[in-house]
């Protein structure tokens, strides 16, 4: 599972660079995110803007990552594409996560 990681002054942005988080990649996803729990500071913001498909296995993996990095650190979501957003809303898991419309950028903290 390919991700890019960017530390900002107040959060860690993890961008998933694969188009799908599904049953075939859920375990890989968890294993890729696990070591990032101790990187940077503030919440981990998961940028899903490149993910066009997420099934219930992928949803479960996102919840698992939330538990892996908690309870002292929050997992937040950003950039949900329409299909991914729908899965979170249908399952009411949108109430569990803080969901950002925009992706936080390092530049925001410059100066």
């Amino acid at each position, binding site marked *: 599972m390919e991700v890019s990681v960017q530390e900002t002054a107040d959060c860690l942005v993890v961008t998933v660079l694969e188009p*799908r988080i*599904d*049953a*075939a990649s859920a375990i890989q996803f968890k294993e890729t995110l696990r070591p990032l729990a101790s990187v940077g500071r503030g919440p981990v913001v998961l940028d899903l803007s490149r993910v066009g*498909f997420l*099934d*219930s*296995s992928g*949803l*479960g*993996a996102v*919840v*698992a990552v*939330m*538990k892996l990095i908690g309870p002292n650190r929050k997992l937040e979501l950003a950039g949900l594409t*329409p*299909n991914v957003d*729908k*899965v979170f809303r*249908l*399952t*009411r*898991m949108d109430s*569990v996560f803080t969901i950002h419309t925009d992706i936080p950028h390092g530049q925001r903290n410059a100066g």
Partner: protein
Amino acid sequence: MQGDSGFCEGLCVELSSDAAAIRCALEQVMASGPVLRLAPDLSARLQLVLAEVLNNVVEHAYVLNAGRIRVSVTVQPAGIECCVCDSGCPMPDGRPPTGALPDWSEGEPPEGGFGWFLIRQLTSGLHYRRQGMCNELRFRIDLN
């Protein structure tokens, strides 16, 4: 042959019972002519439901032995008719789960149990039958 109206187009995909094969099969379905012509929201629902149904077949019906799965998808004016057949274990109690949303009012949110909820939410006319040594699950994804 199809005409301009009253069209009915179908495709059939056969796959082995593993997660990588499911991904390939879904790509094949999504890239097929009849599905490419659907509204994006409808084809997205189709892909999600098929993924959930196929994941269940792999994780439950074929939990002990691997096997083959056959998927047929027919686009009709009223919706998409789907049929998924496998020769794995039967559904527990001979019927598909009711698909209640997991309750996490007390405690942490669950990591699973959403599959059948999504299938039930996004389909209509769901019908399961055990025929000999095979499972057959039929359902429809309505246009609206």
